[in-house]
């Protein structure tokens, strides 16, 4: 007897090119149409074909945004998938696989599933992915209607025969899944959500892309690098609809300099990369600092150093963005904790960059970017586009000294003035100078805005009990996992705090960090944010929960880590 009343985790495992992603994409769409809360995340190897990849699809009675380690149902498309996921297969895991894929392995709940035979029966081995989706839907007791509708749209261009064969494959799988559930007394009674017609299904890249378009971005130049490429691809696909200039740069150095050129001329410009690519952009960040040209930098983090684990996840580039570029100047670092927040934060990033003529970083990671979840359309926030560009007059000086350090920003070709910008230390008109007095004023001018930025900084969001002796701090993509872990723990002495702005920190945060124990949860090896909290807010961190294996934290793992503490 297997009964899933609140949630179920289904994992598809196979080699690259076998269609793991295709199956998961189809399944989440069908589940969403049936009104379920779904969350999917993916882990894959850095290769085009072969290896072992997997995608986890969670169906939950409540909205969830986190990875769980435990597998309720595993669909293994090859023998390696079983080995690859061995540690996550438990006593209760139902394993659907071909018999020869589990030979010699001890699996308690193995269900011999003839994917290939069904596919052949439907017309060709290529239909085995469709069979797999059918099996899962049968097992879940979900009708085939939405999947059949999906298939007819998906394969419409390939003709009626292909659609018909897919339908047959789906039905064979579905019947098998239904029979298996009955025979093994498998019951799934998760209630669909109160299905809102408002629901959209997106991944992290799409969330960033929607935010970038909503911000009125008109320029991206970038060099492909996982996992930063997704945003570049998104904007390229939307370039015509939104008049966005998309340039695939010859290298990251070119990308950042092109973005600064475009921004100087009045565009809202972004670059998207990963840590290794960003390392090449650093001189450009310094250039943005001295020239006060606004730019938004998206870093999709993955484990370093150097090439590291190209397709895996980590939060290891906070220090890189915090300290990037030679010399002293201002910057802002944001890190969204959900897709809805990402859409808003990207717009905020552009507004801050323009208002404060500075670099704004948006830090995400592979886990965040490749995850799929639903967002409510009504929750999508649109911020006004605030450009802060003026029409210049004949006497315009780009770096005019003002009380707050911000000079009115002109762009070439708009007004009667000329706009001179310079990587050297410069005077108010933008011409190079070695005058020490001017230098002193300009250094102050460029740093002065940090104080205003910190006053305008986003405050962290607290969850869990209002008064608690221990506070667990996370940032960026770890919000979902911490929230769920705290809910599972149900402890009155444990609350969570999520930071979506990492730098500069608001002066108000010291009042929010009054717990006896401050625990920081980070997906990196050294606790980079814990160090920053100590440096800038004087926070004494009592414990760090860190992980730098290349995998995201699982809910179970965070629960265990926080339980350990209780026993001490």
């Amino acid at each position, binding site marked *: 007897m297997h009964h899933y009343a609140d949630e179920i985790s289904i994992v598809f495992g196979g080699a690259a090119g076998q269609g793991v992603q295709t199956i998961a994409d189809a399944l989440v769409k069908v589940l969403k149409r049936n009104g379920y809360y779904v969350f999917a995340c993916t882990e894959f190897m850095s290769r085009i074909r072969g290896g072992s990849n997997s995608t986890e699809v969670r169906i939950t009675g409540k909205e969830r945004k986190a990875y769980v380690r435990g597998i309720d149902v595993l669909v293994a498309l090859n023998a390696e998938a079983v080995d690859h996921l061995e540690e996550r297969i438990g006593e209760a895991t139902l394993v659907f696989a071909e018999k020869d894929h589990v030979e010699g392995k001890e699996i308690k709940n193995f269900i011999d599933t003839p994917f290939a035979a069904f596919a052949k029966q439907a017309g060709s081995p290529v239909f085995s992915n469709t069979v797999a989706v059918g099996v899962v839907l049968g097992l879940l007791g979900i009708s085939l209607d939405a999947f059949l509708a999906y298939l007819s749209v998906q394969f419409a261009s390939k003709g009626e025969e292909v659609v018909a064969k897919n339908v047959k494959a789906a039905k064979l799988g579905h019947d098998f899944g239904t029979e298996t559930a009955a025979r093994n007394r498998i019951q799934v009674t998760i209630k669909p959500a109160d299905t809102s017609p408002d*629901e*959209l*299904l997106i991944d992290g890249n*799409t969330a960033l892309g*929607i935010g970038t*378009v*909503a911000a*009125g971005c*008109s*320029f991206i*130049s970038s060099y492909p690098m996982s996992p930063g490429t997704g945003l570049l691809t998104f904007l390229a696909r*939307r*370039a*015509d*609809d*939104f*008049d966005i*200039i*998309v*340039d695939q*740069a*010859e290298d990251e*150095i*070119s*990308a950042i*300099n*092109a*973005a*600064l*050129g*475009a*921004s*100087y*001329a*009045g*565009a*809202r*410009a972004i670059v998207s990369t990963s840590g290794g690519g960003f390392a090449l952009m650093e*001189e*450009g960040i310094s*250039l943005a600092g001295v*020239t006060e040209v606004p730019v938004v930098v998206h870093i999709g983090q993955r484990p370093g150093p150097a090439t590291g684990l190209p397709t895996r996840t980590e939060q290891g580039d906070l220090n890189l963005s915090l300290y990037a570029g030679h010399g002293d100047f201002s910057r802002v670092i944001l890190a969204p904790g959900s897709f809805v927040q990402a859409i808003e934060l990207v717009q905020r990033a552009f507004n801050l960059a323009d208002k404060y003529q500075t670099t704004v970083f948006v830090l995400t990671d592979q886990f965040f970017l490749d995850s799929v979840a639903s967002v409510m359309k009504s929750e*999508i926030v649109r911020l006004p586009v605030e*450009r802060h560009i003026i029409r210049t007059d004949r006497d315009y000086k780009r770096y005019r000294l003002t009380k707050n350090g911000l000079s009115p920003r002109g*762009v*070439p*070709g*708009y*007004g*009667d*003035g*000329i*706009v*001179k*910008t*310079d*990587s050297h230390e410069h005077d108010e008109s*933008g*011409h*190079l100078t070695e005058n020490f007095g001017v230098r002193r004023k300009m250094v102050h001018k460029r740093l002065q805005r940090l104080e205003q930025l910190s006053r305008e900084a986003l405050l962290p969001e607290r969850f869990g009990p209002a008064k608690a002796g221990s506070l667990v701090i996370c940032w960026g993509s770890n919000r979902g996992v911490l929230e769920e872990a705290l809910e599972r723990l149900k402890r009155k002495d444990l609350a969570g705090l999520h930071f979506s702005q990492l730098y500069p920190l608001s002066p108000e945060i010291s009042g929010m960090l009054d717990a006896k124990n401050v625990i920081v949860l980070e997906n990196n090896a050294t606790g980079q944010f814990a160090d920053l909290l100590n440096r800038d807010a004087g926070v004494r961190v009592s414990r760090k929960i860190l992980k730098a294996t290349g995998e995201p934290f699982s809910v179970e793992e965070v629960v265990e880590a926080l339980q350990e503490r209780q026993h001490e």
Partner: protein
Amino acid sequence: MNNMTANPFDMQGKDINWCPGCGNYKLLDAVKDAFYELDLDRRNLVIVSGIGQAAKLPQYVNANMFNGLHGRALPVAMGVKLANRNLVVIAESGDGCMYGEGGNHFLHAVRRNYDITVIVHDNMVYGLTKGQASPTSRMGMETSLQFNGVMLEPFNPVAVSLALNAPFIARASAGDGEKTKAIIKEAISFKGCSIVDIFQPCVIFNKINTYQWFRENTYYLPDDYDPTDRKLAFEKAIETEKLPLGVIYRHEGRELYEDLLCITHIPSYEHEISEKAFEKMLEEYR
């Protein structure tokens, strides 16, 4: 020279950082006069440069300027041009900046072919860092770093540009102001990525490639030279005995990057979000 009327591109009272006798002065005059004679509007002219003595040129011109980083003039220039294609964009720097530090950008600027004019002050030596070899230094030249003389084959910007099918390639000599000005005017008027390599003596660190040396080792292409013949241009590009001056290659066959990207003439500071497209995009994720 337009001595009769004030050139609106002149900067008044600016302390110029170049050495007395530097070829850059002649180049500065040629460039400013070219702008004036082409009747360019200084409000719509942007000069982008990198780092080096040559890269200081826009500091001394009354027009928009982006004086960026060493080697990075071209990516910045591209960003400016694509963000507002109504602007006239000039990228100006030395041989070390354009062909050394920025070599990769040079290759890809020519490949993209956006409408800018690339002016390279080619003095075959590093001035600002005090006398080391540049990518175009002649073999055998002893320098402050190459004590046994330059060992490497010089970079040939004309041949490289030709290999990439640059639509406009010219070479000038700063010592000859009038002809240099005429070549720059032609390059700016040309629609596409125009490359102008200009020999410019460094009177401090290059005692070999002097005004006299350039006079003796160059010649102007004859009037009947056909600059549209790419094979012939290659022959000229690899000549070493005497170096040809003038427009070596020009052809109209390449589309602009701006046009390939379907960039409108609306400058990007006026960019607006299509709300209809935004709504339609969101609906795709149902």
